[in-house]
């Protein structure tokens, strides 16, 4: 039954593809590669595959998601910055991860901020501070007070050096004049293991990954680092509400092309991806995973990208100076 229906759907898509391919000779005329700089199965990858499966129907050409993970995205972005700007190689840019790699001199990245032409943003995932449900710290106030009592002893973990979570810890340290003992992990899974196993006390993370766990009472969220409350966790206060208006952090991801991509291609992609991202199926699938969609295109997205770069510069420099 189900198999039969799936087959019919596949055939329909196939027929559509053939029909469109035959009709139009303008862009795109062949499959498009969409690079994802993180491993398959991660939240960037999931988002990419969902939007690609819808946008390829709009564009009339298959979109192939290719995972080029490694070195926090540096491997994939290096390749993307060198690809031909013909619109057949696109890639996800994860901010501020991309910015800090560019800004950190130790990384010796070959690409710069203007190596990429941002096309459309897909997701904004606000930062969140959380810990295990049985932790003695019930509120953000408790945590800050404890950090003040024991400077440099409360362990706080990130999902990677110079990730948005790392910058968020630095902002918190700056705003509350405290110091944490920062522990870097490779990603969400390691962070979760470390918190649930009582190896680390508090996690700086993003809303997307832990909505379900907060709802089920396994972990406690202390604050969302965003001007507005998260629609997935309406009971969790925000950092501005708690008196830290400067502690704002999020991670966004969207689609970009190598610089120099023709304007007509950008226009076609903007239109197709906007339609795909507003598609009910896309919205539902993304929200089920706890990811908030925020479509930004054109000048809005480009300005966002540039402003963020300036902000990240300050904290990257500070993070590096602390190590020495």
């Amino acid at each position, binding site marked *: 039954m189900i198999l039969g229906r799936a087959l019919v759907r596949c055939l329909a898509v196939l027929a559509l593809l053939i029909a469109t391919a035959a009709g139009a000779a303008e862009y795109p005329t062949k499959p498009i590669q969409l690079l994802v700089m993180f491993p398959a199965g991660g939240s960037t990858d999931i988002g990419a595959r969902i939007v690609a499966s819808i946008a390829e129907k709009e564009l009339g050409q298959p979109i*192939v998601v290719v995972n080029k993970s490694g070195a926090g995205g540096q491997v994939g972005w290096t390749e993307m910055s060198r690809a031909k700007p013909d619109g057949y190689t696109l890639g996800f840019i994860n901010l501020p991860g991309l910015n800090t790699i560019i800004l950190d001199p130790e990384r010796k990245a070959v690409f710069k901020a203007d190596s990429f032409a941002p096309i459309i943003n897909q997701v904004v995932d606000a930062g969140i501070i959380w810990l295990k449900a049985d932790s003695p710290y019930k509120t953000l106030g408790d945590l800050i007070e404890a950090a003040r009592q024991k400077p440099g002893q409360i362990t706080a973990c990130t999902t990677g050096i110079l990730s948005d979570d790392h910058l968020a810890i630095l902002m918190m340290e700056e705003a509350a004049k405290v110091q944490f003992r920062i522990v870097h992990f490779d990603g969400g899974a390691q962070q979760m293991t470390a918190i649930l196993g009582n190896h680390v006390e508090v996690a700086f993370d993003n809303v997307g990954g832990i909505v379900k766990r907060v709802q089920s009472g396994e972990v406690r969220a202390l604050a969302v680092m965003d001007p507005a409350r998260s629609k997935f966790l309406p009971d969790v206060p925000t950092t501005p509400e708690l008196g830290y208006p400067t502690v704002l952090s999020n991670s966004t991801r969207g689609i970009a092309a190598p610089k120099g991509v023709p304007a007509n291609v950008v226009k076609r992609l903007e239109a197709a991806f906007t339609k795909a991202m507003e598609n009910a199926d896309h919205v539902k699938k993304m929200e089920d995973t706890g990811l908030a969609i925020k479509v930004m295109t054109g000048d809005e997205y480009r300005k966002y990208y540039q402003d963020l770069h300036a902000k990240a510069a300050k904290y990257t420099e500070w993070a590096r100076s602390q*190590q*020495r």
Partner: protein
Amino acid sequence: MSATMRRGWRVATIVLFALSIFTIHQSVELSLMDRLGPGPGFFPFWLALLGALLSLILFVEVHRTRPEGPAIPLMPRGPALGQVSLIVASIAVTAALLEPLGFRLAMLLFNGGLLFAMGERRWWAVALFAVTGSFGVYHVFNNWLDVVLPVGRLGI
């Protein structure tokens, strides 16, 4: 240990020793220790030191043994050397041609060339294997498994 084997071990241990010394040199340029514990150079430094020590021990050990048994040549000669080089060269050439020519043409050349060089003279067998192993494989990977294989400058 035969005389040829002894020579081989001596060369190998010297190469590994040199590699270790080079690594030590490189690691001290990275930070070994800083305020936050071991730095990027910490592990490579100690490992390379251990590597240098071990290769030295092995060199001395081998040096002290006496050659025994017949000296069987270690490296291939004549036709065998040809066969070994053929394998290495065929991979190298294919790797170099993979992107300019594209997967299909590079593999067509590789399959056909290697089979012919290894003595297959039935042209239809060579052709069948070469086409299946290039165009056929490309079709399966590209269209069924969604693995993008390189397309060359000629458009295939």
